[in-house]
């Protein structure tokens, strides 16, 4: 008897006991769903993080006071780190020898921008930067120009805005040369930077960049730590550049030899590593949950198959009487168990991908299908079906045809 006919037979017998089949399926569905949903979500987030991170320029690393991502309660050593000041940044720029561009950045978050009667939501960001900001962060100018070193030196009240600001405040108006109020302070718009798109759930098009000196005059430096982004001259000199910057910065920050850095260095790669080690825990968690629920589901499958074999003893007897060999009966019940598991698995996979991506889309991540996990899910479901279906199928195959025929 062909596999196809066996599958039809299995579907037919499942249809006869719909409720029972659905209840049994549920365990498999939950097990597969949990792993697929988590893997889909993680893959979606990862894809989002990857594009988000690649927005740093190439061969670029950053210095910040704190690690970019922290797990668990922050320890006091980290908390007591002194802020990185503008002065320290300037000195690093002067003294470090191996680098191409070095950007010094301060930020004020959750601000409102105003132009005449129009105003934005209070979720825009003001960045105080220097011209090196552009290459270090892979930004480019779409219209007008960026400010110059001279304008930084003179703390000119000029700014460069993003497309979201243009959209909100300057419909059908050319913003260049207009006066804008950033958090109540007046600046002249001299340029618009090109869109960076949304990375990892947040847009970067709602920034306004002003000369760092003007920024510090307007908003002060209290409770603020400077971000430093450094671009190495080339891929080959990347490590050399990082070593040079670290050693110079340790001197500037008065870190004694043998003490740990009181600042954090990170790059695309190290961020990715941190994210990966973080998502790893989720993967293990999802793996354990799935394993347990699939195990429970497997026991359910075995139970239902045993009931099915008992109920169908007469049928087995008839089939054997008219010439079905043991192996044919075994295969029939095994395929039924595997079919049951695979239906559950497919439902779980579809639901998992749907829910994982729904959450991912909510977090602005791209839609992904974790093909590897889909495959793993299907293989595991088949394995559960075979593993837990084997005993009932064997029991069916070994039935004595005379007793089975007599069974009522």
């Amino acid at each position, binding site marked *: 008897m062909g596999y196809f006919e066996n599958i039809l037979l299995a579907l037919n017998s499942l249809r006869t006991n719909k409720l029972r089949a659905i209840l049994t399926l549920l365990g498999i569905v939950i097990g597969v769903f949990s792993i697929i949903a988590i893997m889909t979500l993680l893959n979606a987030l990862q894809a989002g993080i990857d594009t988000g991170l690649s927005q740093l320029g190439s061969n670029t690393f950053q210095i910040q006071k704190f690690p970019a991502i922290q797990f668990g309660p922050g320890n006091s050593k980290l908390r007591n780190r002194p802020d990185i000041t503008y002065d320290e940044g300037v000195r690093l720029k002067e003294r470090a020898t191996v680098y191409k561009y070095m950007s010094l950045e301060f930020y004020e978050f959750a601000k409102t921008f105003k132009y005449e009667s129009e105003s934005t939501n209070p979720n825009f960001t003001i960045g105080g930067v220097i011209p090196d900001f552009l290459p270090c962060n892979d930004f480019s100018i779409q219209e007008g120009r960026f400010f110059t070193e001279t304008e930084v030196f003179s703390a000119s009240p000029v700014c460069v805005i993003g497309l979201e600001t243009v959209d909100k405040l300057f419909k059908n108006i050319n913003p260049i040369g207009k006066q804008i109020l950033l958090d109540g302070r007046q600046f002249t718009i001299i340029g618009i930077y090109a869109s960076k798109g949304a990375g990892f759930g947040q847009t970067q098009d709602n920034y306004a960049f002003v000369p760092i000196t003007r920024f510090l005059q307007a908003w002060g430096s209290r409770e603020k730590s400077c971000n430093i982004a450094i671009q190495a001259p080339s891929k080959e000199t990347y490590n050399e550049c990082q070593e040079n910057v670290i050693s110079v910065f340790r001197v500037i920050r008065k870190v004694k030899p043998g003490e740990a850095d009181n600042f954090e260095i990170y790059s695309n790669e190290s961020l990715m590593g941190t994210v990966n080690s973080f998502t790893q825990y989720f993967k293990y968690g999802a793996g354990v949950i799935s394993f347990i629920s699939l195990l429970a589901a497997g026991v359910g499958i075995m139970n239902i198959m045993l009931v099915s074999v008992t109920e169908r003893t007469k049928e087995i007897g*008839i*089939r054997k009487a*008219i010439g079905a*060999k*043991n*192996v044919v009966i075994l295969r029939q019940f095994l395929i039924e168990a595997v079919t049951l598991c695979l239906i559950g698995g497919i439902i779980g996979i579809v639901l998992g991908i749907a829910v994982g991506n729904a959450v991912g889309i909510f977090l602005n991540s791209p839609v992904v299908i974790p093909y590897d996990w889909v495959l793993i899910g299907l293989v595991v479901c088949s394995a559960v079906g075979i593993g837990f279906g084997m005993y009932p199928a064997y029991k069916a195959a070994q039935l004595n045809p005379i007793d089975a025929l007599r069974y009522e």
Partner: protein
Amino acid sequence: METVIELKNIYKTYVMGSEDLTVLKGVDVTIHMNEYVAIMGPSGSGKSTLMNIIGCLDTPTSGDYILRGQNVSEMDDQELAEVRNKDIGFVFQTFNLLARIDALRNVELPLVYSGMGKEERLEKAENALINVGLEDRMTHKPNELSGGQRQRVAIARALVNNPAIILADEPTGNLDTRTGEEIMALFETLHENGNTIILVTHEEDIAKHAHRIIKIRDGEIESDMINPSKVKKTAVPVE
């Protein structure tokens, strides 16, 4: 005439706890091609055990059973299944059709197990159903058929593989008298068409349709004779 079944000194002993129960005590029977034999006996006579052995559902404890030249008493489960599939057509008292599939699929089933291709087996199954007069009931499920029709489906299933023998166990036991007579008439036709039929029954009325009647009691053959009412039609040698 060609020998189909040869039972030589068949013993069957069951172990019941500490006691051994011998149900068949040296049964010798030879059945030829195109014979119509009834095996009769009261319950407990060993009739059912003998039928199970003839039907290759069971093997004797000792003795030889030669079916169409092959010694089936030595066979294992797998080989027996194959013999049942190819050489034996069962007709049961309770019809024993699969409830969830229609008449055609029921009749097709033995051919499925013998590995025949789909088109060929559908054609054969259809022909078998036509032969028992059910050409307009092919897509009916057993519960949509009357008792007589169900038994006809079962007979079609028994015939579809062109077996050496048709083994009918109380085929009219679940039918009313009139339908029972119809079924017996059908067996008569099958016999006339050259089939070898073995009828297992405890009813004299049914056994009298057969051309040879073997009576069994306490595990031994009590009598084996030609049915006098049928003797004119066919002469059957008895050893």
